[in-house]
């Protein structure tokens, strides 16, 4: 079990991570989600032992990791661009850690790992001849070779193009589950986090602002900024918020209400009314901006056959699963 207690990391006296506390049980995959510059990569490097911890305690199964050098931590680190060793073949890259430990039957294990990541027969290729996705798969196999206590993933998919990213994210989750690997991944992409992880920690300005089960965090963001970062389109306060909660059939919230872009759905005789400001057709639905009576301008969606145009008055229902009550921050 990895645990961090009030860990701070600074660069030249400027704090990059402040008082971060985390825990990650064996077998789980935690995504640390944050915008760029939030300190998430620094946190990862500190866990890997590549940056010194300025304050706080970093431990594994209650053993303090301070003073344990990177190569003795047993945490494998996978970089954004794989960082394969360009002068070694795929097989020698994957078997690198096995050779360091003089593991018998390394060749068999390498074959096994390449099969696990779907790259059978790639043994003798050089990294330069691989596509971006293949390189990441090799890097993953290399990291898994010695069955690390913890796998650290630094934006493992962000260097790839969108379609490939989606496919590889699903593969990555399956591979991690199958190998039973405990993993910590940092990313700025919510889709990536949701596709791979089961636990989520949100970082902002060097602090961890929220953590928990991924669905839980998704459902109940800790504050308005987190809600916006998690992909909610608007955060409403006061009377505007009440209009939404009432329409959703929920009790009045004490705080703000975060609303997804698809929370309002155009429907006959819905509890909300408003005037369409603009409409844009997408392949699956029509996206609208609607000036909602009593709640201001919000996003809404309509079925493709509804054809509302700017200036039309429409009525809407609220999908209660797509709004979240957010505690006020004072």
């Amino acid at each position, binding site marked *: 079990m990895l645990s961090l207690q009030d860990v701070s990391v600074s660069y030249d006296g400027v704090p990059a991570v402040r008082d971060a506390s985390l825990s990650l049980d064996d077998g789980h995959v935690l995504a640390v989600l944050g915008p760029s510059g939030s300190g998430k990569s620094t946190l990862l490097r500190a866990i890997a032992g590549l940056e010194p911890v300025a304050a706080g305690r970093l431990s594994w199964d209650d053993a303090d990791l301070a003073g344990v050098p990177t*190569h003795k931590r047993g945490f494998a680190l996978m970089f954004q661009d794989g960082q394969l060793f360009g002068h070694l073949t795929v097989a020698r890259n994957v078997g690198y850690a096995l050779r360091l430990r003089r593991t018998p039957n390394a060749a068999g294990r390498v074959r096994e790992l390449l099969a696990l990541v779907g790259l059978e027969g790639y043994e003798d290729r050089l990294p330069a001849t691989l596509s971006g996705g293949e390189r990441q798969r090799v890097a993953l196999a290399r*990291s898994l*070779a010695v069955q690390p206590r913890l796998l650290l993933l630094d934006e493992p998919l962000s260097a790839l193009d969108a379609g490939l990213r989606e496919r590889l994210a699903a593969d990555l989750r399956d591979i991690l589950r199958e190998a039973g690997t405990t993993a910590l991944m940092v990313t700025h992409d919510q889709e990536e986090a949701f596709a791979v992880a089961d636990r989520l920690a949100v970082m902002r300005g060097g602090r961890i602002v929220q953590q928990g089960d991924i669905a839980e965090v998704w459902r109940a963001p800790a504050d308005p900024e987190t809600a916006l970062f998690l992909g909610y389109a608007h955060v409403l306060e006061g009377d505007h918020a009440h209009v939404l909660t009432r329409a959703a059939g929920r009790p009045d919230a004490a705080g703000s209400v975060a609303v997804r872009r698809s929370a309002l759905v155009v429907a006959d005789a819905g509890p909300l009314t408003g005037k369409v400001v603009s409409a844009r057709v997408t392949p699956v639905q029509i996206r609208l901006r609607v000036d909602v009576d009593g709640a201001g301008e919000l996003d809404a969606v309509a079925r493709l056959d509804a054809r509302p145009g700017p200036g039309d008055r429409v009525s809407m229902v609220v999908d209660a699963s797509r709004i979240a009550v957010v505690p006020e921050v004072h």
Partner: protein
Amino acid sequence: MKRIATLVGLAAVPLAVLGVFFLLPVSGMIGEGFVVDGSFDPGAVADVLTRPRTVRVVWFTVWSAVAGTAVAVLLGVPAAHLLHRRAFPGRRALRAALLVPFVLPTVVVGVAFRELIGEAGPLGFLGFDGSAVAIVAGLAFFNVAVVIRAVGAAWESLDARPAEAAAALGASPAQVFRTVTLPALRPAIVSAASVVFLFCATAFGVVLTLGGLRYSSVETEIYLLTTNLLDLQAAAALSIVQLLAITALLLVTNRLRAVADPTLARSTARPHRPTRGDWPSLLSTGLVVVLVGLPVAALVVGSLQVGDGWGLDNYRALTTEGSRQALLVPVTHALVTSLRTAVDATWMSLTLGLLVAVVVTRRSHSRAERRVRGLLDGLFMLPLGVSAVTLGFGFLITLDEPPLDFRDSVLLVPIAQALVALPLVVRTLAPALGGVDDRQRQAAASLGAGPLRTFVSVDLPVLWKPLLAAAGFAFAVSLGEFGATSFLARDENPTMPIVIFHLIGHPGAMNYGMALAASVVLAATTAVVMLVVERLRVPSLGAF
């Protein structure tokens, strides 16, 4: 076709200069070896090569160069790590200081080592005076800077993440170095080592001043055969051997250099403070500082010694011709000659070097064009492979009759020096020019800029610093050039290195003291030039 015509047009001036002042003298020298009494006789070359003395000289050249290279690499690589990957106070000053030996005039270094390990010197008890150890130490003294510079630059820009990935996979620091860092640095180390070997094998001033009568390398042997024994044919034969060996080495070096992957991702780590684990680097850097510092210190101290006391008498004597008519002109006169010559050599090598650099770095549009550029690139590197002594000797025997009678031209010495400096200039400018994305030029052209305007707005901004650095480099090289100059300088117009060499060859305490003082002055002049250049922080400086 038009592109190739432009290319040849730009290359015309450097080609003409290279043809007249390099290819002609060198081929004239080769002819001298093969032609005996007016008839072609290659057997004479073979005769010379089987002389026991020749074999001894060649063997000494090879092993002393190998030893010098080994010492320079073994000390230089760890020192490069400390100076380019670790942060500590005074790092930049130390880096600059360790660069100076490379451009110190060879004669000065010879004098400094003699002062240190000579019978009366502080390390005289070691008995290294006139020994091979002294020569190897002298060679390492010069070339450790080359290794630190080349390997350090590669190390500094080395992506830290593969090493971090290896550490995260369980590799200890030593394993990381062996399996990740060393393979990444290998091209830089091999390339530095081959260049250092080249410099060691063609070292002239150091071997001549330290070797005495016992040790002679191919280079000094050519000099002795030409000037003392007047055995021109033997000298020519040795020159040919050297030319072939060094050209072969250059070709191999080029091949090795091509291995380096130019597309390497660059994410350089910020250097951090040295830790206990850095002891090999710290130890090596300490040794380098001792190796470089001691001779220089001995030189300065020696120059201030007058009889049993201290004083500036040696420096005051620089306005005289020395005792017992050691010189024809005062040393100060030689200093003025040196500076004047260096200015001429600098503008010549800069003009030639800039043209060559532009020609060889422009992107090729066809295979033929690329081949022509590659050929030109190699051609202008040739002066690196031909010893300065051979060049000077070739000048003497080919440029002595109309229409190419330059014996009395005051520009002869600067031209020879400019050619010696040319490869360094090209190697400093070409990487900067080659680093400019060609699309920048295309963008400028598409906005209506003509070729000249494009050059001014795209190339010049990245080029001015390397240009200044190359100027400083050429200036320093010219100030210290001894091999070619010793053949070409007229007795009444000697340069500083020539004067120093004359002074140590003449008996008398005053002459020796003057040699020391003159060495300090010359070393200080070059050092100042080099330190200014170092301030420009040109990454490709001294890259080969």
